[in-house]
């Protein structure tokens, strides 16, 4: 019993072929869109690679780029096949390739689905990478004279201004590290020496944050120094003050930014997957109906199209048997004592042309 059998007349077959040709071209466009989405994600990640620690997050955009290119190629070939399928003589050219093409595309759609799911799963890796990267970047904020790290101050400042965030999880992260270079500290002053002595590692710590943490929405000029000291500033209470500095941490801000991008990309990939699957179903119907037409012999007749010739279980069993016999073909055939040259009479009926009339016996006399 075939799976989802549908009857096709000649006009219906031609229409199916034309519609599939157009749909394949649309799929080429969606493949190009996938490629450009992967490229966009790669550029976005590379823009902020300085605040990300070494983690394996480049696989995601690379996979999207590869999937996009393969989708373009597969759908281009599919379009060509469907274009030729309107003419049954040209179909003969593609007859042998069509079934492997359909199987390949089926497995490819699995890849597309895996790609869509990966978009949603990358979050954990990204968070880990950002956490470590931001901590390192803040640690090297003051090293503006070390080659290789001299631009980290600028990068972190611009990041905090652009994403409206401060520190890793909050502005208090800046209180725990020295972000002023020793070159600008007057070591002869008592206050500086006291601060350096006040902690084990000899770091100049203060309750202050860089200027890039300042919130532009604050009604008063920015308070960046002595943030926790209420008496240092007039009419100021740091526990209730929310508009002075950015309250959000940069890790969370960057995660939100990337999550938004990846959710959009994930949605686009899912839609592409559904589209590809429907195009594949159409091509399968086209292939089976054209093969049946060839079997019947009359190109203008009706034919059946189906997804699978037998039910799922039978198809699985037949394929398993094929795989088993592939394994067996290497072994010697035991029936004729292993001699392939003995003539075994054929058990099938001979086919004597379209009328099936056996040839007349030629008379012996000339």
């Amino acid at each position, binding site marked *: 019993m075939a799976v989802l059998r549908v009857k096709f007349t000649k006009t219906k077959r031609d229409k199916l072929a034309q519609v599939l040709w157009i749909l394949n071209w649309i799929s080429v466009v969606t493949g190009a869109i996938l490629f450009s989405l992967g490229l966009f994600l790669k550029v976005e990640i590379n823009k902020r690679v300085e605040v990300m620690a070494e983690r394996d997050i480049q696989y995601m955009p690379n996979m999207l780029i590869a999937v996009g290119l393969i989708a373009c190629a597969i759908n281009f070939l599919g379009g060509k096949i469907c274009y030729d399928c309107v003419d049954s003589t040209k179909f003969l050219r593609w007859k042998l390739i069509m079934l492997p093409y359909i199987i390949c595309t089926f497995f490819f759609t699995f890849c597309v689905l895996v790609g869509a799911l990966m978009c949603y799963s990358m979050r954990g890796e990204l968070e880990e990478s950002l956490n470590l990267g931001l901590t390192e970047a803040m640690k090297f904020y003051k090293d*503006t*004279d070390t080659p290789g790290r*001299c631009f980290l*101050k*600028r990068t972190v*400042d*611009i990041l905090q*201004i652009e994403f409206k965030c401060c520190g890793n999880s909050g502005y208090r992260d800046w209180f725990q590290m020295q*972000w*002023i*270079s020793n*070159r*600008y*500290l*007057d070591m002869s002053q008592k206050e500086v020496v006291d601060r350096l002595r006040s902690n084990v590692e000899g770091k100049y710590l203060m309750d202050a944050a*860089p*200027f*890039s943490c*300042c919130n*532009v*929405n604050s*009604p*008063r*000029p*920015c308070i*960046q120094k002595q943030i926790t000291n209420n008496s240092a*500033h*007039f*009419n*100021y209470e740091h526990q209730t003050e929310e508009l002075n500095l950015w309250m959000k941490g940069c890790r969370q801000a960057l995660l939100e930014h990337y999550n938004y991008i990846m959710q959009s990309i994930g949605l686009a990939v899912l839609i592409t997957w559904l589209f590809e699957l429907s195009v594949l179903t159409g091509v399968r119907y086209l292939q089976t109906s054209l093969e049946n037409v060839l079997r019947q012999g009359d190109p203008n007749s009706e034919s059946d199209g189906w997804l699978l010739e037998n039910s799922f279980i039978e198809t699985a069993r037949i394929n398993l048997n094929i795989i088993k016999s592939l394994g067996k073909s290497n072994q010697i055939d035991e029936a004729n004592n292993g001699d392939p040259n003995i003539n075994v009479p054929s058990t099938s009926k001979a086919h004597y042309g379209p009328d099936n009339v056996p040839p007349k016996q030629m008379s012996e006399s000339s």
Partner: protein
Amino acid sequence: MALMVVKFDLKKRVKLAQTVWFMYWFAVMAGVLLFSMGLFFKIELRKRSELMDNNESHFLPNLLILMGLIACAINGVGGKICYDSLDPSKFAKWKPMLKTFLVFCVGFNALLLVTALLCFLMRIPLQFTLAEGLKNGMKYYKDTDTPGRCYMKRTLDLMQMEFRCCGNDNYRDWFEIQWVSNRYLDFTAKEVKDRIGSNVDGQYLMDGVPFSCCNPGSPRPCIQIQMTNNSAHYSYDHYTEELNIWRRGCRDALLSYYGGMMNTIGALVVLITMLEVAVTIGLQYIDSSLSTLVNPEDPESESEGWVLEKTVKETFTDIMAKMKSLTKGGKVEESSEAAVETVS
């Protein structure tokens, strides 16, 4: 003697019509581009209207939008005419109004050229508007509790960060105004009282700038207060320090931004004008070649096409004579009416 005469046979006429039709489609897209440029410019002006004293003239972007729409319409009609010119029966429909349409096109092209010129000249009034607007903006920086001005601080801060500038001409403009609101000044402190007493207007002036003037590319944390006092900061010399805050004035920065935008738009308008002139000339050739068929019944006969029927001087004298006769026609009617009245 006609200007730039070209001989046409059927094949050449068909090719001309097809080429000009193709060019008209480009011209329609150019019209859309013109419209969108006007829209973009209008939005950009709107975005910073607070800094321009709400006084900026939207004349130029409105003109660009209008010209874009008219260009789309004219080029659409022109394309239709070209498409129909291949079929003599359809072309006969358009024949009577073609002359007026061409005159209208020529007028439109002249207007486009004037628009391009305006794009380059608008820089000057913009300079004055910006100078006035920025000065007032800085004056209202501290008024974050006054309704209608409470966003001025935010606007100025964002602008200084985005355009990498500080103050009107330079950072010293901030030293001359009070940019800290009185709500955050402790009037019981001696220092505050001294500063307020030190100038005529009773303003709290200091040699400090807002945080948005800070340059992220500076190797040291930003120095925004006591900027002229070298001894207040370690290893600091404010005469030679260049990386601490942005050194450029915001009027300069905004002017170069808008000036660059207007120069680009002006250049594009000039290119679009050249395209429009080309399609107008093409349409004139089509019109003249189809009206001078050697054998009017035979569509395959040869014909001539030209840009002007007579020489430039003769055409000019013709137009002058026509205009004179139009004005004289009015006068003759008046005198004849007066004569009729006197007689009766």
